[in-house]
């Protein structure tokens, strides 16, 4: 199993450009998450999904959109890139969530720079 894969690994965007960060998992996990990590900070939840067709906002959703058309894929869309979105983005998945104490499996991350 490849686990959680993310593409691209690195990207430089100009202000106002759009892009999609791809995330795929092959573990048949129901829950998927997108986080961003700024230097010296912890991971902040952007969006999450508890199953195909269901998404919900996390702590910092502004400027992002997601979709979950299949169990495997959970792309993150940046519509109008801003310098404040310069960060490292992590996708994760887990079998369950809520009060179940489920381990999250993380992708390798995407380093995005907006200039």
């Amino acid at each position, binding site marked *: 199993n490849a686990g959680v894969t993310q593409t691209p690994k690195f990207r430089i965007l100009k202000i106002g450009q759009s892009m999609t960060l791809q995330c795929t998992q092959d573990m048949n996990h129901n829950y998927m998450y997108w986080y961003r990590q700024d230097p010296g900070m912890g991971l902040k939840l952007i969006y999450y999904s508890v199953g195909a067709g269901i998404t919900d906002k996390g702590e910092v959703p502004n400027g992002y959109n997601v979709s979950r058309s299949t169990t495997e894929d959970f792309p993150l869309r940046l519509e109008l890139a801003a310098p404040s979105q310069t960060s490292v983005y992590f996708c994760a998945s887990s079998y369950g969530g*809520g*009060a179940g*104490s489920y*381990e999250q499996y*993380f992708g390798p*991350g995407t380093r995005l720079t907006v200039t």
Partner: protein
Amino acid sequence: AQRVTQPEKLLSVLKGAPVELKCNYSYSGSPELFWYVQYSRQRLQLLLRHISRESIKGFTADLNKGETSFHLKKPFAQEEDSAMYYCAPAEEVFGPGTRLSVLP
């Protein structure tokens, strides 16, 4: 409000010395409590979780409900323990991390 503090950004210890990485949290629900680790050039991965009461790679973590803390401890640090450690009181809430450096 959910908040996690890991007071040390960087913790340096000598090989063989005890190590304690602190984690304090305020969480409105019932905390699940995890420690995740990221070794150099590897992805973030689970180290241990409170519910399992386990010891992984010699690390243990004790929940102190009164102090709302979940400190990570190891009696004898090894060089291969050098990594970033993140406390997570819930599945999607992470602290800022502590970089542990174990010196030879």
